[in-house]
């Protein structure tokens, strides 16, 4: 890039630089556009209510206060209870972690079988799973409620885990299957000749190769499950609601004045885990999505 620029005549160099700056300007503008709401949320959550009423929306806080955060975390009212987000946050953790782990593991197994053990009907099953990815959730709410009721899981956290695992399998299978089809079939043959069986080959050869796609799947599933509202609101009861439902209740509870700063703090708290996951593992996400075949 720099070589090209320095070896071309000065005029072309200037054009190139101009183009580059325009690109930066446009990208910067878009970044600003997306970051502005976050900025407003953050500043608002650090202001007192008086300051919010007095000042402008995008002004920086004059007196930084963390009390809205404390309120949002432990004492905001979600209806008749006033315990803040905390219990619901933990509900979400208890739902998301097992559901992500289970759906990822099942997806890996399914993908491995469909990609490398080409049994009769494998393509049909894969097509059905793909179809499952595109069924609108609203369609299944009632049947799923019946099913959970019959299983004795209605309104419980295991019930929500079950729902998320089932609805995750389509996508996780797709991810792993597409990753595993790029692995040469000779690898399985060699392992078979070496005496390894179905699970041994999966465990010793495929799983160690899978880190990039595991990261992709975990991020995807975690984001889906953590941010889910529809299943959360449909299949939970008073003590088992996830954080998204609680956030909605805090924002919509209409007792007294509207506490914008608490709402903002609560929203950030609810969004924080997915943000952190992206910041920590985001570069693996991109890398995993573009990871190519494995050369023996």
């Amino acid at each position, binding site marked *: 890039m720099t070589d090209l620029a320095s070896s071309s005549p000065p005029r072309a160099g200037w054009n190139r630089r101009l183009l580059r700056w325009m690109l930066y300007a446009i990208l910067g503008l878009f970044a600003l556009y997306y970051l502005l709401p976050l900025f407003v949320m953050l500043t608002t959550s650090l202001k007192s209510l008086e300051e919010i009423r007095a000042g402008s929306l995008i002004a920086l806080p004059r007196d930084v206060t963390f009390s809205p955060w404390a309120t949002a975390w432990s004492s905001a009212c979600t209806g008749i209870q006033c315990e803040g987000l905390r219990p619901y946050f933990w509900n979400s953790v208890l739902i998301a972690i097992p559901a992500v782990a289970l759906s990822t593991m099942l997806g890996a197994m399914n993908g491995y079988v469909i990609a490398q053990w080409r049994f009769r009907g494998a393509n049909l099953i894969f097509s059905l799973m793909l179809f499952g990815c595109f069924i609108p959730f609203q369609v299944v709410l009632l049947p799923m409620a019946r099913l959970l009721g019959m299983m004795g899981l209605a309104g419980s956290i295991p019930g929500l885990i079950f729902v998320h695992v089932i609805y995750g399998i389509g996508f996780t299978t797709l991810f792993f299957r597409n990753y595993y089809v790029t692995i*040469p079939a*000779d*690898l399985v*043959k*060699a*392992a*078979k*000749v*070496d*005496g*390894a069986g179905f699970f*041994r080959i999966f465990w*010793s*050869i495929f799983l*160690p*190769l899978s880190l990039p796609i595991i990261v992709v799947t975990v991020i995807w599933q975690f984001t889906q499950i953590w941010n889910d509202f529809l299943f959360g609101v449909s299949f939970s009861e008073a003590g088992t609601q996830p954080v998204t439902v609680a956030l909605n209740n805090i924002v919509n509870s209409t007792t007294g004045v509207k506490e914008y700063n608490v709402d903002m703090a609560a929203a950030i708290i609810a969004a924080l885990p997915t943000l952190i996951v992206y910041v920590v593992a985001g570069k693996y996400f991109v890398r995993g999505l573009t990871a190519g075949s*494995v*050369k*023996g």
Partner: protein
Amino acid sequence: MAPILDIRNLYKNYGATEVLKDINIAIEPGDFLVLVGPSGCGKSTLLNCIAGLETISGGSLSIDGRDMTHVSPKDRDIAMVFQSYALYPTMSVAKNITFGMKVRGVDKATQARKLGEVAAQLQIEQLLNRKPGQLSGGQRQRVAMGRALVRDPKLFLFDEPLSNLDAKLRVEMRTEIKRLHQSLNASMVYVTHDQIEAMTLATKIVVMKAGIIQQIGTPAEIYNRPTNLFVADFMGSPAMNLIPARATREGAATRLEIARNSGPPLVLMDQTAPELPDQIILGLRPEDIAEAGFRSGSGVQEAECLVDMVEPAGADTFVVTSLGGKEVTARLHAETSARARQHLSLAFDISKASYFAPESGQRLN
């Protein structure tokens, strides 16, 4: 001795397509069998059937007298080297080689001892801690060999193990595989589409085309007495000259008349040929056509030919002329005085001739 591998009337179909048809092969302990044929003729499929990685659709297959129809690959006492090497990417070289023993529950001490032996044999001791991704093509090839050798199996299976190497390395590894075969006295089945590899390595060659065995024999038999036009054309480089000719009987001898673009036809006499049909294909290897005066024997006859092209190739010089409407290549010594577009007297050794029927392609003598 009982055959180590005995294949009888084997068929393999994928759905409606027959990939292997009526395969019959038997090899003795210590044999080096090479399956050779053009790409897509079913060599890998046959090897996979032997390994148990593909089921067979008909016939039987036994290894060391034991029927293998319902035996899984791991219980066939075989080892296999793949064209892609198929090394386990996340395991070190040492782990790659010992994986099979680990799976089978061989104790650690034995694993280490065998690993040491094989690493020394293949001179890969300094690579044991590397991952396959950090190895060159030739090194990966050695590791793949090591993984097979460490098994000490009844039967080694190779699927084009050298085809991903560059030319020089390929020749080196070819020699090494041959040496291994001799020192281990192991039984091997080796797949290649490279007829030179087949000739140099095999004690027995199977030539295949479109899922059908064309000929089985020693390299010399295949080379000197190809059973049909396909084998004649496929084996040998440059290929055997296949020249259309008219055969007529003159007493005990056969008179072969070969048309030429200009001038009178070339006439060769064969004193020992059997009864031939009127139209035949005469097969002569390039080395059976020499410069006049450099070849003697009862069947040698000389004739003037117009040289179209001269191709020096180091040790030999190839001279191309035209006979019976076909390009005909002669293998001459390096110091030949042959010049393009000049006449040259060539010596045809008709005692080495193969005769084929033009329609069926079958050998006639």
